[in-house]
């Protein structure tokens, strides 16, 4: 979203309250969605729940193509469509809902830094495992990603996606990494998060922030998703306070839904 459009959106957004019929779009939950998208979507849902903003989840096979930035999830609120957590956080802030107002400057800097850590290491590692590990890509990612489409489109789209991700990995210097190195990065990232969390209920003491939503979204999805190898979840499970943190947020914000 451009800055001009952003300024315009925030002006309009401030004028209108959050509507009841806001909708969050994501790929099909049972057959199609992949680990990384599912994690991002859960992070946004958690964030909106933390803000106390109601949202309906709609699963669409073509959610990725509906999104203005080409990434899922995105929310449709009134007349606006906003995608990804960062812009959504700004958008809700313009409407007067913010979780990070109580933080001082240094804490806000730390919060942003840790959010980038999750993007930089966890999200990238998820993408790597999904598309660069041959067995995961063949058994899970490609079939699931292309499930709504018929032959030959399914193969074309899946391989195209895989090729895009692999090129991206090469460009950011992950091309030469082995699976073991990627898992090691995940461990490192989880340890860092675990250290930062310590024994607090949330990253910044008593109140949840968007960082909590993001971390929960990713860790919970990694813990509850079945992949060809459970190594990713094992690495997360080594940090016991992160497990407790996930359980705590699940109970606080998803009690009604978790069955």
């Amino acid at each position, binding site marked *: 979203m451009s*800055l001009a459009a952003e300024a315009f959106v925030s002006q309009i957004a401030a004028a209108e309250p959050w509507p009841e019929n806001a909708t969050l779009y994501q790929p099909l939950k049972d057959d199609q969605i992949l680990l990384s998208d599912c994690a991002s979507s859960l992070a946004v849902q958690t964030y909106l729940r933390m803000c106390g903003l109601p949202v309906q989840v709609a699963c669409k096979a073509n959610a990725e193509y509906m999104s203005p930035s080409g990434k899922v999830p995105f929310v449709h609120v009134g007349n606006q469509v906003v995608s990804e957590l960062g812009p959504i956080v700004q958008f809700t802030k313009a409407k007067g809902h913010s979780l990070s107002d109580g933080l001082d400057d240094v804490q806000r800097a730390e919060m*942003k830094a840790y959010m980038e850590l999750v*993007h930089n290491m966890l999200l990238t590692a998820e993408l790597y495992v999904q598309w660069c590990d041959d067995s995961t890509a063949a058994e899970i990612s490609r079939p699931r990603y292309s499930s709504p489409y018929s032959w030959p489109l399914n193969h074309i789209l899946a391989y195209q996606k895989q090729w895009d991700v692999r090129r991206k990995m090469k460009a950011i210097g992950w091309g030469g990494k082995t699976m073991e190195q990627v898992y090691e990065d995940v461990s*490192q990232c989880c340890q860092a998060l675990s250290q930062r969390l310590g024994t607090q209920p949330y990253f910044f003491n008593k109140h949840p922030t968007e960082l909590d939503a993001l971390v929960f979204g990713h860790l919970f999805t990694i813990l509850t998703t079945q992949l060809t190898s459970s190594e990713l979840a094992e690495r997360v499970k080594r940090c016991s306070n992160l497990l407790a943190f996930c359980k705590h947020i699940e109970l606080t914000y998803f009690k009604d839904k978790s069955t």
Partner: protein
Amino acid sequence: MSAPDELFCWEGDWGLPSVDTDCLIVLAYAKFAGAPLKVQKISNPWRSPSGSLPALRTSKGEVLSRPSDIIIHLRKQKYNADYDLSAREGADTLAFSSLLEEKLLPALIHTFWMDSKNYVELTRRWYAEHMPFPLSLFVPGRLQAGQQARLRLSRSDHALDAGEELEKELYGDAVECMNLLSQRLGSSKFFFGDSPSSLDAVVFGHLAPLLGAKLPSERLQRQLRSLDNLTHFCANVLLLYFPSDGRENASRKASSQAEGGDVDHEPNKRRKQILSGLVAVGAMLAYALFTGILSIQHVHQRALESSPDLPADEEDEDED
């Protein structure tokens, strides 16, 4: 540990030990940790053992080229600048390094490699001038293509040709990132107390080129200069850990500028005049030889050879 590890990096300029962010990170970390590296400053990436810079050739002959790998290797050799950090501070290091990589690095790539004015007048010129002749024609362009691919793929949701908007967004992110760093640093000397750590190396590597380079279009640079504590931080690291580079480069620059000023005056000009005169004379002589003189002599000789019935004349010729 008989032979020290050998580190290959880009040459320095602008008062910095190297012009490249990754090289600066590794150099600064090695200084902070006190690792005895044999540093080879080169300006020809083909002379590096991995084909890219920086590269570390360890005493066992292994070659590492990613800064993170090099730092891990140094750490394994007990050269650890983060030894005194608590686990929490180690976590912060990782987080802020990610912040720099995600928010500041794209804008830096844009400033140095995409901004056409900066690229043509500063970046390409610098690399081309420092490389040997045939490489200087295509290696800078190849480096740019690599950086461009990196920027495009890390921002896959945007077409790079969205020009203005992308620029604004990148620079907005970068300014926010620099503000966050400045807030985190506050008034302390280094990010974690009084001794430098790997985060200091990473921040220094990203900010120092932006401060030091004489960029024609200096939008991002101006923003950074307005953050006093970050400017001081970089100057401080340079002063404490790279005192010789700063002075050496400054003096070299001064002398090269003095030479540059002389270009229009006597010695070089005279030499050029003489050289171009020689070249012209050479070309004319060659032309004359190939067309006129040589053929005339041939005809002359052949005419003499094809007249064996005039032995007296031939003898005359031989005597001549």
